[in-house]
């Protein structure tokens, strides 16, 4: 079973607007860093890093890209700097500890079930393990007082999508207008598009996506 992403906006790249009035200086410098200054691993140990990278690959699979959007490095960087999200769930340990223990627990769960490392499992096995975290159906002792479902949804999933959908490649694939300052938009009606917005590919690809 191969995984495929159907792109409705194959011709569209928000980066084409870099020099246009949709992008201002601050935005350019922020996105420039994001594209080119990928942080090194500093927070997780090597094993945790392998697990995290494999987890990110299953949450956001990117089979069509030779250079996938990096996710794990930004999670590592934020935790290394100790930047929080504002919420520490009382049912979970403090965020940095949750991440470390969570990655260890995923590895322990893989060893417990398959006698192999998480990053060596195949896709189906990895997905099954992640799904059982979401169902609170994990068995390894390492999960002791780390509720797997809260950890998965509120800590892991949120962090991963927050980083992925902050990347221009992700903006492009969903047809999002992307940065828009000082120039915003003029046409606000349905099915109307400003000239600097994405053109959607219709109807063949689209039809398959809207279950009617």
């Amino acid at each position: 079973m191969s995984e495929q992403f159907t792109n409705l906006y194959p011709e569209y790249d928000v980066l084409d607007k870099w020099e246009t009035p949709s992008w201002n200086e601050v935005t350019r410098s922020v996105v420039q860093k994001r594209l080119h200054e990928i942080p090194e691993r500093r927070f997780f140990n090597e094993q945790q890093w392998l697990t995290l990278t494999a987890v990110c690959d299953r949450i956001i699979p990117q089979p069509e890209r030779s250079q996938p959007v990096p996710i794990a490095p930004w999670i590592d960087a934020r935790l290394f700097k100790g930047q929080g999200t504002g919420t520490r769930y009382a049912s979970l340990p403090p965020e940095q500890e949750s991440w470390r223990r969570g990655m260890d627990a995923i590895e322990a769960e893989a060893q417990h079930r398959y006698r192999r490392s998480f990053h060596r499992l195949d896709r189906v096995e990895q997905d099954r393990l992640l799904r059982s975290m979401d169902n609170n159906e994990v068995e390894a002792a390492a999960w002791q007082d780390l509720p797997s479902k809260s950890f998965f949804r509120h800590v892991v999933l949120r962090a991963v999508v927050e980083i992925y959908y902050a990347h221009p490649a992700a903006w492009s694939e969903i047809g999002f207008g992307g940065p828009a300052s000082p120039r915003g938009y003029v046409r606000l009606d349905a099915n109307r598009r400003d000239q600097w917005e994405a053109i959607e590919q219709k109807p063949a690809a689209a039809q398959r996506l809207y279950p009617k």
Partner: protein
Amino acid sequence: MSNPETDLRATNGRAPDVFRRGAWVPMREYSDDEEVDFAVVGTGAGGGTLAARLAEHGFKVVALDAGPFWRPLEDFASDEKEQNKLYWLQDRISGGQHPIEFGANNSGRSVGGSTVHFQMVALRWRPEWFAARSKLGYGRDWPIDWREIWRYYAEAEDALKISGPISYPWGPPRGRYPYRAHEINAAGLVLAKGAEALGVKWAAVPLSTLSAPRGKAPPCVYRGFCKVGCSTNAKQSVLNTFIPRALAAGAEIRDLATVSQIEMGSGGRATGLVYHRQGQWRRQRARHVVVSGYAIETPRLLLNSATAQQPQGLANSSGMVGKCLMTHANHAVWGVMEDEIRWYKGPPSMTVCEHWNYEDRGKDFHGGYAFMSQGPLPADHAKALVSNTGMFGMQLRQHMALYNHMAGLKIVGEVEPHENNRIELSDQTDELGIPLPRITFSFSENDQRLYKHSLQFMRRALESAGASNLIETASTAHLMGTCRMGTSASDSVTNADGRTWDIPNLWICDGSLFPTCGGVNPSMTIYALALRAADRIKALAGRGEL
């Protein structure tokens, strides 16, 4: 270039001119030893507004904020991740059966407070809510008559040049909004279509963003990044309205200044503040102290200022400081439309239905809710989706690829005040040694009936508008209560003016004053309370009763 997150901007006799890159306006300064008339903690909807009005009434005012002093034109990127810098991201320990999500979801940390990133929805309360107990049979009565607040709403709307519809379909007649309503985006028209199909009214949301130029601020360009800060100054926030007024009237604003304690003198009166700025602990003397840190930080500061005489925390003889924390239920239904909606264009909420705020028949719950059209930015929406559904993998990417076809409806739903919902000090501390807050929150049975009703209604509305593949999400928004106002010292923290019962020169002016929370966004009511408090203080001073 200096970094506003680490280097002071409001210092050396000048403060940033928020309307021009790299520019300054003059600022009056007071020394720590000078006893100012009012020291205000927090410069958001409550504190910033009050500081401006008190200065305009001729008082000597210093207002401190833990956050930076931004110039939107040069500091704000069109980028969700970068703009996290606007939020209060310090840990809050969140428990209870329905733990509240903090951070980006509900509090700011900037000169201008949470209004720097708020979504500009500028609604008035239904008059009966100010007497919820006597008129509607639930909650509590406010110590202020609705007519008085409604007069101040008009004043706040004028100060912010709210853009609103010519006639608003619910509640008593109100005057014209200062600026015309904005053109409604496609996402807003989905709500309109759904409401019409179900036979209920809808309206353009009165919004705190300009539909025509005002002074140095241009009209809104519909870029849709409002929730992460408006980089054009079209949004009328406290940062670009009341703060410039405060400075012009001679108030001093101190950025990057975190207050840890209110100091008490021997006579049972507050004498000033202890605060941390640029690596130093300092003390500001003041004849009056106002706390405007929002519904978590305000009680946190009062509790952390406990003395031998007031061991349970300042102004807490009633035991109500930190109790009756309220948030709004923020449940939503999302769907996929045949049409291209492109909901990223324009302010996120452009239409509203307040039907269930004004109709009491046919409900199995007390209270009300409004629902509004939606237009979340990609990461924001993805986060709501995954934390509510657990969706991941290619299914998630492919679902997000329908972003331009999505539409959603979300409530601001009233929540009951309950003593069990509260904030306390934990035994863990932040980097300055101040105890971190621990929050406990659970929706009551009534609250749950309310949001279930709303989810059913919004499902029907979205389906009638042609949406398919509906997904429900649960969330919360806004913070209120925790230092409620009232008519008696035994069961409230302050009187109607925000003056604490226990300490005559200690005041509160922010969302924590709310005895109940109503079914609309809170900022207009906070503005109204702040404007009213400043006028009351002037009147009391005139009579020698300060």
